[in-house]
């Protein structure tokens, strides 16, 4: 029991010691709590101070930012207006480009249409020429057919054609008569001209020959008859032999 008492006492002692320890620990905990709360307060106050400064700074920066924001909003508005204006301009330009493109397309279409029309015209020309040739061929064929037909029909209409042919023949005969008369008159004129030409040339030859003969005979006479024999008489009359000839044979001159 004693032992148990001792043990118990020891345990009580242990417990006392532990209680003391616990109380000490509690006191230190309390101190720690106070310290921690003070530290917390201090830190908070420090933070607060920091935050205030920061708040001021932030406020200032906010103001600056607000100003900047206002500027930016103004700029943005201006930019928006400019953008809308430029958009409008771009739209206008696009419309113009579209119009130009459309015009270009129209022109291209027109040129294409023109080319097509030209091709068509060429084709039509070729077709026309071909058709003209066929028409010519058909015409010639029709003519041949008509000729054949008339040939076939001639025995039936013989009297009528005969009279027509006779009339034509009469006309032709009259024309040939007129031509014949003309030719006859021309022929007579030509004969007259030839006759006149021949006679005139013959007359000229005769004249020239008589002149030549006279000259030669004069020479002969001069050679045969001595002119000195009659010189005295000629000198008295004061005439040359040619003048005497003129006097004697006036007709021939």
């Amino acid at each position, binding site marked *: 029991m004693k032992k148990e008492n001792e043990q118990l006492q020891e345990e009580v002692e242990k417990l006392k010691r532990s209680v003391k320890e616990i109380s000490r620990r509690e006191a230190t905990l309390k101190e720690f709590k106070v310290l921690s709360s003070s530290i917390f307060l201090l830190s908070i106050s420090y933070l607060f101070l920091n935050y205030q400064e920061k708040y001021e700074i932030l406020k200032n920066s906010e103001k600056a930012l607000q100003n900047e924001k206002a500027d930016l909003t103004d700029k943005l508005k201006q930019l928006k207006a400019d953008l809308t204006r430029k958009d409008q301009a771009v739209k206008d330009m696009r419309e113009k480009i579209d119009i130009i493109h459309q015009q270009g397309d129209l022109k291209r279409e027109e040129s294409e249409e023109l080319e097509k029309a030209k091709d068509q015209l060429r084709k039509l020309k070729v077709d026309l020429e071909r058709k003209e040739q066929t028409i010519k061929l058909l015409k010639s064929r029709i003519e041949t057919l008509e000729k054949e037909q008339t040939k076939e029909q001639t025995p039936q209409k013989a009297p009528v054609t005969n009279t027509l042919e006779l009339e034509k023949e009469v006309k032709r005969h009259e024309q040939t008569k007129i031509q014949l008369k003309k030719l006859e008159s021309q022929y007579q004129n030509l004969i007259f001209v030839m006759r006149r030409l021949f006679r005139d040339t*013959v007359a000229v*030859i005769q004249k020239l*020959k*008589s*002149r030549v*003969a006279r000259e030669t005979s004069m020479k002969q006479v001069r050679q045969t008859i001595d002119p000195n024999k009659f010189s005295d008489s000629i000198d008295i009359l004061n*005439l040359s032999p040619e003048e005497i000839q003129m006097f004697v044979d006036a007709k021939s001159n």
Partner: protein
Amino acid sequence: MFVIMADVLFYSLGYSTVGQANVQDTSFQYTKLVEKFEEELNGRGMLNPSVLYDMMNNVIEERVGVEKKIQ
């Protein structure tokens, strides 16, 4: 004076008679030629152009020859 005139007449008649004889010959020849040409022109048949041409050509050549002689 009478003697002088007679002499002159004799002299002049001397060369007129010689010349006239030649002229008469040629005139007869040419009248024949003209008659032949007339026959050719007024013949019953067709005209013969070669004969007419020859005649005309001969006459023209003769004329040219005579003219040359005179010149």
